[in-house]
């Protein structure tokens, strides 16, 4: 379980995340939607301290960190028990697909090389890249790179996986293969927080949808509640504009 309480993040005078409270139970998939620049990604990046929040509490199971007093060890604990899938993939360009997946296992989890390779291979098979294991990132398509990124996150076996707009940098025809891999991970019962603009996908896999605007949570509920009967005016506007093709009941 991951719990965020009263989280604030400012970039100078710009208040990007304002008093956010969010709880994700084990095995749940939470989707964060909202307009660009509303602070969704920043919120996600605050969870593993890629951005340092100004105040708030982050709790991972029974490990609680007050962000104002977070020590290096606290930050490492949060980072080692969460994994991030980035919008720009962020693979190591001088390492092959399998080496990218192994990196965290060997360096951080101190697994021995052989074991790590076996694990990495398993996860690459899992995301459908069994024939691309020894390719370097530049030899892979965007969709394939992102699947390596997801395999890397899954292999670390974290308590929660954070997806930061995983399909936003992809060609439309590659979005499907990446979503399929995320969907499979969700079905396995992985705990995930996904920031995404893929509304129909979010609606399909999320247990809960959070609508985020100007740094705060405006509306929260099941996909049905948020997509079909949004209460907040802003949510209605946003959803009308992204224009879901199937905004009706069957």
């Amino acid at each position, binding site marked *: 379980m991951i719990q965020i309480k009263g989280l604030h993040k400012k970039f100078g005078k710009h208040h990007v995340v304002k008093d956010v409270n969010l709880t994700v139970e084990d095995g749940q998939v939470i989707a964060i939607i909202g307009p660009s620049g509303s602070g969704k990604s920043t919120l996600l990046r605050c969870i*593993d*301290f*890629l951005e340092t929040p100004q105040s708030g509490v982050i709790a991972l199971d029974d490990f609680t960190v007050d962000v104002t007093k977070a020590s290096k060890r606290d930050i*490492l604990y949060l*980072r*080692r*028990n*969460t*994994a*991030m899938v*980035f919008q*720009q*993939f*962020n*693979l*190591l*360009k*001088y390492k092959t697909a399998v080496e990218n997946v192994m*990196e*965290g296992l060997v*360096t*951080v989890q101190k697994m021995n090389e052989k074991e790590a390779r076996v694990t990495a291979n398993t996860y690459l098979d899992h995301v459908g890249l069994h024939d691309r294991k020894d*390719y*370097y*990132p*530049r*030899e892979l398509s965007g969709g394939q790179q992102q699947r390596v990124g997801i395999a*890397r996150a899954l292999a*670390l076996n974290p308590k929660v996986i954070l997806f930061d707009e995983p399909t936003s940098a992809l060609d439309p025809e590659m979005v499907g293969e990446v979503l399929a891999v995320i969907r499979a991970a969700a079905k396995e019962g992985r705990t995930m927080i996904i920031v995404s603009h893929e509304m129909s996908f979010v609606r399909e896999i999320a247990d809960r949808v959070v609508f985020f605007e100007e740094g705060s949570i405006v509306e929260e509920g099941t996909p049905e509640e948020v997509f079909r009967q949004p209460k907040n005016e802003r949510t209605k506007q946003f959803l009308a504009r992204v224009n879901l093709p199937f905004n009706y009941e069957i």
Partner: protein
Amino acid sequence: MPKLFDFELVFSQIPEILRYLPITLEIAFISMILSLLIGLATALIKIKQIPVLRRISAFYVSFMRGTPIIVQLYLTFYAVPMVLQYINYYYGTNYNTNSIPPILFVLLTFALNEGAYNSESIRAAIQSVDRGGIEAGHAMGMTTFQTLRRIILPEALIVALPTLGNSLIGLIKGTSLAFVCSVVEMTAAGKLLASRNFRFFEMYVSLAIIYWVVTIVLERLMAHWEKRLKVNERRLPVDDPNQRLAQEIR
């Protein structure tokens, strides 16, 4: 007509001078390694903007780049014994200032001088490393040192290698100044040998040939190493004609 230029001697005396090549290489390689450590430390100080050290290292780099190496050699040659004498005087120790092997002065000076130049190439290389990869390392839970060792330095090395190779070549030729600290390396030995028959010109021709050959060999080695490090650019992907074309154009 007397023999103005003894062509044969140029080649016949090469083996005799080559006996001193190990000293030349020793000075060059040891001070190169030291200079890399100094350069890395200085570069990190500058990147991390560490308060007081930043000023000191800026002063050091400026001094080393602003004064001729031969002056620096004389400075160390006189300064180190002087400092030792002061230490002896104030702390009652009994270091023998004459027992310092002269090669230490040379190593120290070349390491400090080269370190100042290398610090700039290392800094530029480190700052050229892809932010995304570093972020991925942090997100996995790598410590600062692990990120440096596993992600930043390997990538920076590839960028810095050509420049560092140049500075090593410069260093090899620079070692010919070591005689000012009474170290007999190749050039100094050559001058001594030539004073037997006063065939100085032949000696300098022989020396020029040796330095040139050594430099060419080193250049080749560096180029080979660079190619090996750039693993991800080595292979032509067979199954993607577009990428193959792009690589062939490059």
